[in-house]
């Protein structure tokens, strides 16, 4: 017979609880007897009755220590029994904690992490508090997605420096979307799983590329948003670089696609340095940057970026069947029938990157192109546009105090009505962004708006999304086409078409006038 024992110093437990634990553990057939007591003088005396327990063994025991004893013919079984009693005492109260989780929501990230195993934080509180909450999430070791905007660049730098050092992703601030391990965070689309990894300093850029890839039969391994300022001079791609390293280490990622709004040169250099050690092929689409790189493939538009990724991973890049070609002749006829004053393109966007892309394309061909997204000429008042004007309704100044236009299309729809009624508008160009969190029927709201006017101005649109999205892309396209709206396969295709339309207007009208 062997006796094993354990002294837990400075621990008080109720005698009933101790007895209960001792008797539970004694149920095991391998165990002869057990005891669990507080180390009072009386109890110490009783403990001496155990074979092999001496006064010397108990010399350090005090009245506020717990003593756990088990005897068994098998020394290992006795030791196990003592261990079992110890762990039961230590876990007392645990089931109550679980009960709490079920009944009451935690009030802090910290409490949530104490109660369950958490890997990722999604923070969308007001920008005032977002940095503070992001710190808490980072210190819990979480990959952290900060959807909130209005966080200063300085705070973003502090957070990202820390996260970069720790190898944690800090996605944002102002990160609209991400897909981690197939899980949509924020405004994400339902896309297929595959081998293409995206890192994007642009929410709608990420959406456009991931949905295009998904529609053409391939899929996404990860889609990591970084926040629009990640490739700024201050941040120098801190999150982009961490993300590249993750994707490079990932066996399911066969190609890494980098997307960014117009980046700063030092950021590009820093990212290129990271890429130089990267074994996975990389495709870069940095808006407005002409890069001649030997080792890295680059693309000029989001559509081209997606097609290049499809090509590199051995997928076909032909248009899918649900996207019939736009009837260009019909558009040409419509454009020519407009009155001579109607010469302007009016681009009305909910996605900043989509807007930027359209401006960059238009600016190559047309004169007097202006926007509120920092490319082309600066549009002084986005709500009083003239010439070829492109407006992003998702900018900070236009979302101040109201929801993003992807959620609430009211402001854009008002501007759409005005554009259609304005005597100089020749073509309207729109983007429609689907996915979780977006308006449930953006196409319907556009069609309803158009119906309130008697305009014959042609409208060209592109729909960013998939058929698995809550709004269903093909259904949205059907609604638009039924109302006579031209729907192109991609934002770039729509922009190209609009530019072409504008050249038809300006090239042919003088002849008409002289005839």
């Amino acid at each position: 017979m062997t006796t094993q024992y354990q002294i837990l110093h400075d621990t008080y437990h109720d005698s009933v609880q101790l007895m209960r634990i001792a008797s539970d553990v004694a149920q095991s057939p391998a165990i002869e007897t057990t005891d669990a007591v507080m180390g009072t003088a009386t109890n110490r005396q009783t403990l001496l009755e155990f074979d092999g327990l001496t006064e010397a063994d108990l010399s350090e025991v005090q009245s506020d220590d717990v003593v756990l004893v088990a005897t068994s013919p098998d020394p290992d079984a006795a030791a196990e029994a003592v261990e079992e009693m110890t762990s039961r005492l230590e876990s007392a109260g645990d089931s109550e904690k679980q009960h709490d989780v079920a009944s009451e929501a935690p009030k802090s990230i910290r409490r949530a992490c104490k109660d369950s195993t958490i890997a990722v934080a999604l923070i969308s509180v007001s920008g005032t508090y977002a940095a503070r909450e992001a710190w808490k999430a980072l210190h819990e070791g979480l990959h952290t997605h900060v959807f909130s905007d209005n966080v200063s660049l300085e705070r973003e730098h502090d957070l990202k420096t820390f996260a970069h050092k720790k190898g944690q992703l800090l996605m944002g601030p102002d990160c609209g979307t991400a897909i981690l391990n197939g899980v949509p965070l924020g405004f994400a689309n339902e896309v297929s799983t595959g081998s293409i990894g995206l890192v994007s300093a642009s929410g709608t850029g990420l959406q456009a590329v991931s949905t295009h890839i998904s529609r053409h039969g391939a899929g996404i391994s990860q889609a990591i948003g970084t926040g629009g300022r990640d490739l700024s001079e201050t941040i120098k791609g801190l999150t982009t670089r961490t993300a590249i390293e993750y994707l490079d280490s990932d066996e399911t990622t066969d190609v890494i696609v980098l997307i960014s709004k117009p980046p700063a040169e030092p950021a590009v250099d820093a990212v290129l340095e990271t890429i130089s050690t990267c074994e996975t092929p990389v495709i870069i689409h940095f808006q407005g940057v002409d890069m001649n790189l030997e080792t890295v493939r680059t693309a000029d538009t989001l559509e081209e970026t997606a097609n290049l990724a499809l090509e590199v991973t051995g997928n076909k890049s032909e248009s899918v069947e649900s996207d019939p070609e736009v009837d260009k002749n019909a558009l040409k006829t419509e454009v020519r029938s407009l009155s001579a004053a109607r010469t302007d393109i009016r681009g009305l966007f909910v996605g900043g990157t989509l807007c930027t892309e359209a401006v960059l394309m238009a600016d190559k061909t047309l004169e007097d192109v202006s926007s509120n997204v920092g490319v082309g000429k600066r549009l002084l008042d986005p709500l009083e546009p003239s010439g070829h004007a492109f407006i992003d309704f998702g900018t900070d100044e236009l979302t101040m105090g109201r929801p993003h236009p992807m959620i609430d299309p009211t402001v854009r729809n008002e501007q759409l009505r005005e554009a259609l009624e304005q005597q100089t508008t020749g073509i309207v160009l729109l983007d429609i962004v689907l996915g979780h969190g977006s308006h449930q029927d953006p196409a319907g709201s556009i069609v309803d708006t158009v119906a309130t006017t008697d305009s014959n101005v042609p409208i060209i649109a592109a729909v960013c999304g998939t058929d698995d999205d809550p709004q269903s892309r093909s259904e949205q396209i059907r609604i638009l086409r039924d109302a006579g709206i031209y729907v192109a396969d991609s934002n770039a295709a729509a922009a190209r078409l609009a530019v072409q339309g504008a050249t038809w207007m300006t090239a042919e009208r003088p002849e008409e006038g002289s005839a």
Partner: protein
Amino acid sequence: MSDLFFDDGDGIVNVGIESFIEPIRSKNVPVTDVDWKPYPGVDDELIDGLTELGEHEPKIRDANERAANRLVEARPIWRDIQNARTALDLEGMTLCHAGPPVTWDNMSGPQRGAVIGAIQYEGWADGKEAARIKAASGDVSFVPCHDRSAVGPMAGIISPSMALAVVENEAYGNTAYSNLNEGLGEVLRFGAYTSDVLENLEWMEQELAPVLKQAVAAHDGIDLKLLSSKALQMGDEVHNRNVAGTALLVRELAPTIATLDEDPHRIEKILSFIGNNEHFFLNLSMAACKSATDAAANVPWSTVLTAMARNGTEFGIRISGLGDEWFTTPAKVVDGLYFSDYSKQDASPDIGDSSIAETSGVGGFAMAGSPAITQFVGGHPQEALGYTKQMYEITITENTNYALPPLNFRGTPTGIDLTQVIETGIQPIINTGIAHKEPGIGQIGAGIGRAPRECFLTAMQAYCNAYRNETVPVEVSEQ
């Protein structure tokens, strides 16, 4: 599913927009939605300060763990009875009082009454008018009990001749003190100063104290942690309910007292005095708590509270990482159950050092184990569970020595974190007696109150200012 960023079964915590949850859950990934609210009353300057502290969070957490562990690991033993002049080093005409520092001019009714009583008791003036003049003259110095490692319930007036319980924290070697509980009814701590009150004090000093001193020595000290643990399992929360604690104490002391060579009538009177006063254990419990909070004080970077105290004029708190500095706000009248003939209009604003109980993790924080207490607010036992559960949101650790049976022996929430109070908007709960606002009338009720938020906001801003440049205030250093 890929496991690049997390493993199967890991969850996502959502803070903010609720509509983001459903798409995540549809992928069979668990989501914990934080019940988040903007930090109440926090202005832009304080938000900036808190955000700047973000980077230092590991240092702060580490400091808080240390401070909170000191609360848990304290081993308070009642060792002795000593006279206050010696024990607290009270020179000349010095009186200790409950709460943060206060002047005679600003002193509340009950505290003034107790001062008038104590001045007569010490013989510094004859009669209540003379005592009042003496108190106002500037000859008498007033110091917070807290500054001398002591605590006193309600008015908390300790004068040099009074007998104090000496409690040693054997885990850290520090000592804390409290006066002895005078009983109920007309007593000094509620501002009464009649001749009966003074005679009772005299008896306590001359008769009770010497016997207790002998008994405690003969017993080789009384383990207050053990008594409190047991009392908590018997329905006390060792602040506003001390029925079990007092009974356990009598059970412990009576056999030893019986062996002393004393007049049986005197012994009978002493045992009856203790046994009939359900709050006798309170002062011992308070000294035990104080011995723990003093050990947790002065931990650099720690945001753990080391004092919450009231003087009927102001409510004050101290923060471990900010040393002895008090952060105060006007004390409020407590909502509670009033004895017949009295109402809220008669009540003194919150008063007493007894909130040291909550500061160290018992009292209101242990209410789950003391459902009877909820009667003071006409509440339901279920509410008692709710109060304790809520306090887990603002505390650093759980004291498993103080296991709560209704919460499946979960430990009491311990170590109030200033930052969590600020960010959750949850104010610490305090169980308390209510004194009449006029001196000499006594206790008129009891209730459950919340620590006022204003002094927490001031303290948080002071903390941000102090630690902004990663410098520890000079006076703060760990023992």
